[in-house]
């Protein structure tokens, strides 16, 4: 469920990035790299788990599924926070700079 949640986040971010490309004012690319990287790593985890459990891997207990979904949502939120911090620090639109340094008339 964590893998699935991250893959959906990666797909949505990639679509948003493509819509805004080639301009990257909102730095959505950062989110794409982060979610795709995590998705690939969790895919390996899933393959290893499937090798161990077999078909049972696809029948998780509802409680485990809910916990994994909760983890997936938390991972997506953490990714968004990392992206937001980078966006505000890089400030590609100059919004923070404009707010901090007002021009003298």
């Amino acid at each position, binding site marked *: 469920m964590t893998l699935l949640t991250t893959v959906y986040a990666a797909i949505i971010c990639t679509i948003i990035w493509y819509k805004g490309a080639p301009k990257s004012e909102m730095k959505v*690319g950062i989110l794409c*790299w982060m979610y*795709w*990287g995590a998705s*690939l790593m969790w895919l390996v985890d899933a393959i290893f788990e499937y090798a161990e459990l077999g078909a049972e891997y696809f029948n998780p207990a509802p409680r485990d599924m809910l916990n994994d979904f909760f983890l997936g949502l938390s991972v997506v939120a953490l*990714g968004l926070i990392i992206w937001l911090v980078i966006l505000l620090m890089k400030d590609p639109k100059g919004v923070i700079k404009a707010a901090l340094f007002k021009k003298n008339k």
Partner: protein
Amino acid sequence: MGCFLVPVTEAVVTTVAARVIKSKETKETVNISSTDGSVEEVTKIKFSTKLGWLNKLLWGGSALLAFEHIWHGEVVPFFPFLTAVENGETAGMLAEMGSAGVMMSVLVTAVWAGMLAVSAVMEKRALRAPECEEGVKA
């Protein structure tokens, strides 16, 4: 247990490599003439930029994976930081790092290599267009 440490190690190496390569790279420009007859000068994507894609995949993925390990109590904020080491399961942890951790690094690197191949094909196609001139700028 500690599988994310393998991609983190790779990320450290590739980040250093990207910095070193970037400092030695020269700007490569290409003149592309479009169908309306106008000639446009474009810059080729540097290898350090392409290596940056791998860095972002590895750092981003490892960061989120590290969070998952904290979530499951496998990583703790005090020494020795890894629960497996604290519980005397170091051998099991190393075995997992050697299997799942290495596979994670291999898969991410393989996907990046695929991206390099696709971008190389796209660059070649763009250059195959009539009247393209390649040049190197210092």
